Every structure is written in structure tokens, then in C-alpha cells.
């Protein structure tokens, strides 16, 4: 019944005496040139980040609407989860909390003792960064990049460059901040590198992201003391990641007789795909600034120390 009504298919190219605007070819050439200019501007000059931020901020309500169906499904699934399951989970969590509390008591005394000893030796007192809890709203829409989008943005005082961790280890770093969300690039992304330390022998190295959700540690000699199963933790010399966070476990070591370097491959310990919550850690610079404003007495000492640590700092390769 509906066939035959839609015959009004007008031809695209009108005869020349009905000229209406430029031809498709000239339009195509014009817009291609325009997009090449845009790409160059975006890649090299960073002029367009403001525009991007404004657009994502404006799009936030639309995104909320798009999120509604999945949120509804998630919530209703939660609502109908069985009573028995909840009771069991509650019991388990209580037990876990109890165990953690016991561990925390010891940790607190150890921390105090450590700080005391360090102050006796005249060393730096390690700073414990504050953290903001965020939810993963979705994985990135670009299949070429290893990113997740978190529902905390510049409205929640997130800054580009902040480290992101979960309960198991380091996830990555905030690379773009929008008003209500931010983009977290994972440590397995090709553009990200992270300074690490082997937990067993304190050997320092830099791990680079690699395709296939693994990390690569290049430029280490073949006779380096790294074994399969070694745990890599952050070394804390970059001024971004606090030291001692778990990063990865070494899974594979290849020795190519033609290459002077060992090929060391490790898998990240953080499990991004297993849960939705993560922690965004405050940058050490802002903490130091806070400390400065808090006590003016130690201002000189802290300033001298930050100068020292600034010299040591290596800049992360992640583009903001």
C-alpha cells in the first residue's frame, strides 16, 4: 500500500539554468581543505580545546538522555537482585571491612613511626594525596584509543594530568577535562608512559603502553635482573603518580640474540573492565601548594625541596 507514493525523487544536479550554489565537486574540495586546516590546528596548536570543552559541556544533557535506558536497566536489575544475595554480600563486606580495619591500625602506627624516622634522618615526609571517587560512564567512542570516560570533570576540580587508580593498581592519567566528565587514558595506551620500579630489587625503569593491553619496558640490557612474575610499582619520581602503587606484573621476557635489549612484556594489575568505580588522585603540586598556605613556617624548607624534586621530574608524554 505504501509503495508508489514516494516517487518524488528529484535529481541532484539541476540543469545549468537553475543554478543553485556550487557544484558538489567544488564543495568537496572546499570542505576537504577546511578539515585539513582544522586537523592541523587541532594537532599542532591546541586552539580548539576550548571549543571541544564547550561542545561537550553543552552536550551533557543530551548524553544524560542517551544514558537513561541503560541506567534504568541497571537500576531495575539492582532492584530485583535477590535478598539472599544481598545478605551474603553484606556479610562478606563486613568481614572484609573488619580485616581492613585491623590492617589499618597497624598501618597507622607504622606510618607514624616511618614519618618520625624520616624526620630524624632529615628526609622528605611522603605526602598522601587526597582522592575523588568517580564512576566510569563509558569506554571511549574512538576504537583507536585506550580511554575511559569518567563522570567527574572540571566542576569537581579535576585537572588534566591527575593519576587514576582502582583497588588493584594504576589505571592511567586524566588527559582531557570537560565540565562534567573527563577522559582517562589508560597506561596501556601507546601515548602514555609510566615510571616504574621492580618491587623485588628497586630497579627503576619506564614502562610504555603497547597494543593488546600490555606494557612494554624497552631499553633494558639482556642481563637485567627481572624475572617473570616480578611486580612493578610506581617509583614516584615523576611528580604525578605517588610511589608504591601496583602497576603491572611481568608476564613475558624475550631475548633476541640480535638485539642488545631484552623485550619485557607485562600485564597491568588494575582491572578496568571488572568494575565501574575508580579513584582520581590529587596532583602533588596542588597538595604542596596547600601545605604552603597552611604553614608559613616551613615555607622555605618545602620550597627548597620542591625545587629539588622539580629537577628530578620527568615530563609525562601524555598530551593534555
Amino acid at each position, binding site marked *: 500500500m*505504501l*509503495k*508508489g*507514493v*514516494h*516517487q*518524488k*525523487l*528529484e*535529481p*541532484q*544536479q539541476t540543469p545549468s539554468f537553475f543554478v543553485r*550554489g556550487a557544484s*558538489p*565537486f567544488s*564543495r*568537496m574540495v572546499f*570542505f*576537504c581543505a*577546511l*578539515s*585539513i*586546516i*582544522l*586537523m592541523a*590546528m*587541532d*594537532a599542532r596548536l591546541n586552539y*580548539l580545546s576550548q*571549543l*571541544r570543552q564547550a*561542545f*561537550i559541556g553543552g*552536550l551533557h544533557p*543530551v*548524553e544524560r*538522555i*542517551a*544514558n537513561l*535506558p*541503560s541506567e534504568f536497566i541497571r537500576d531495575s536489575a539492582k532492584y530485583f537482585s535477590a535478598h539472599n544475595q544481598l545478605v551474603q554480600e553484606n556479610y562478606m563486606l563486613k568481614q572484609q571491612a573488619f580485616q581492613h580495619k585491623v590492617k589499618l591500625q597497624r598501618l597507622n602506627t607504622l606510618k607514624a613511626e616511618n614519618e618520625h624516622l624520616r624526620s630524624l634522618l632529615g628526609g622528605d615526609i611522603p605526602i598522601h594525596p587526597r582522592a575523588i571517587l568517580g564512576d*566510569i*560512564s*563509558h*569506554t*571511549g*567512542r*574512538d*576504537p*583507536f*584509543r585506550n*580511554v575511559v570516560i569518567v563522570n567527574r570533570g572540571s566542576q569537581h576540580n579535576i585537572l588534566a594530568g591527575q593519576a587514576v587508580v582502582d583497588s588493584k593498581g594504576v589505571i592511567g592519567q586524566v588527559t*582531557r577535562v570537560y565540565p562534567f566528565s573527563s*577522559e582517562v587514558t589508560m597506561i596501556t595506551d*601507546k601515548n602514555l608512559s609510566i615510571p616504574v620500579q621492580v618491587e623485588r630489587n628497586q630497579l627503576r625503569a619506564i614502562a610504555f603502553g603497547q*597494543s593488546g593491553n600490555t606494557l612494554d619496558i624497552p631499553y633494558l640490557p639482556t642481563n637485567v635482573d627481572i624475572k617473570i612474575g616480578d611486580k612493578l610499582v610506581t617509583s614516584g619520581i615523576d611528580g604525578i603518580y605517588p610511589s608504591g602503587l601496583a602497576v603491572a606484573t611481568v608476564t613475558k621476557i624475550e631475548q633476541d640474540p640480535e638485539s642488545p635489549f631484552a623485550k619485557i612484556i607485562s600485564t597491568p594489575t588494575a582491572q578496568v*573492565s571488572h568494575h565501574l568505580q575508580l579513584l582520581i588522585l590529587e596532583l602533588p603540586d596542588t597538595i604542596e601548594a596547600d601545605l604552603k598556605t597552611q604553614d608559613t613556617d616551613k615555607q622555605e624548607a618545602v620550597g627548597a625541596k620542591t625545587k629539588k624534586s622539580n629537577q628530578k621530574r620527568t615530563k609525562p608524554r601524555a598530551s593534555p
Partner: protein
Amino acid sequence: MRAPSLLLIYSTLFFALLCQLFPWTGQGIIFRPDFMLVVLLYWLLRAPYMCNVGTAWVVGLLVDLATGSLLGQHALAFALTAYLALSFQRRLVLFSVLQIATYVFGLLFFARVVILILKLFAGNDAPGWHYFWPVITGMLLWQFLRLAFGSLARPKPSRSE
């Protein structure tokens, strides 16, 4: 079927943007069709007097902003695809449904290849063959659009009023 109006075109494009923004997690993301591109191609081929290469460029820019990729990558790919689509548009009325589907398949594949080349130039790693899954899911979406808004092929004379 209704005759296409600007309102219909822009509302379907907006709905496609919503689908594009829909939070995809897990493995399903591999199969996600390029909603905006498929809807855009449909209207380009159906009502070329209402949208043109410029519309494609703006839609591509929106996709760039939504995906957070380098600004202009999708815009360039969409503009090129739109030009290719329009250059054979007048012949499409003579085609059967299957032939048009093949043509659209080619266009979707072309757009993906252009984006792949641009991404490789920008220094990204090459993804596996699963990168081309959206071409096939895009075809399914095309069939849906065809059923919802009318086919491009000229109806058979015997069935006309």
C-alpha cells in the same frame, strides 16, 4: 511514506547522535554501526536537494567532537564519502534494492578506510579486521531506514497509482 522535510532530516540526525552518544561498554562496541554516517547517506541519496557535502562535513565534525578524536578527521571522511555518494546519485533510481545496498556497502567501507588512513597518519596503531564490522551492522541499519522512510528505488510501474 512522507516526503522528506528538513525537520525530519534533522530530527533523525539528532536521534543518530543520541545513538552515537549511547554509552557502549564491553565487546558490543566492536559492532556499533556509524549511526550518523548511515542516516546522513540515506538522506543524501534520498533528498539531495536538501542536504549536501556541507551537511556531511558538519555531521562529521559533530562525530569528531563526540568521539574526542582529532577535529576534522571524520569531517574529511564524511565529506569525501558524501561527494562519492552524490556523484552517482542520479543513477540510483534505476537500481534494484540489492544494487543500492551494494553501493551503500561500498560507501560505508570507503568512509572507514579514509578514517583508518587518517588515523594511521596521526600515529595510531592499526586495529585488527574487527575494525570493519560496523560496515556490516551499518548495512543492517540501512535496511531498517529503508523500511522506515521508504526505498530509494523507483517503484514498479504496475504498482503505481
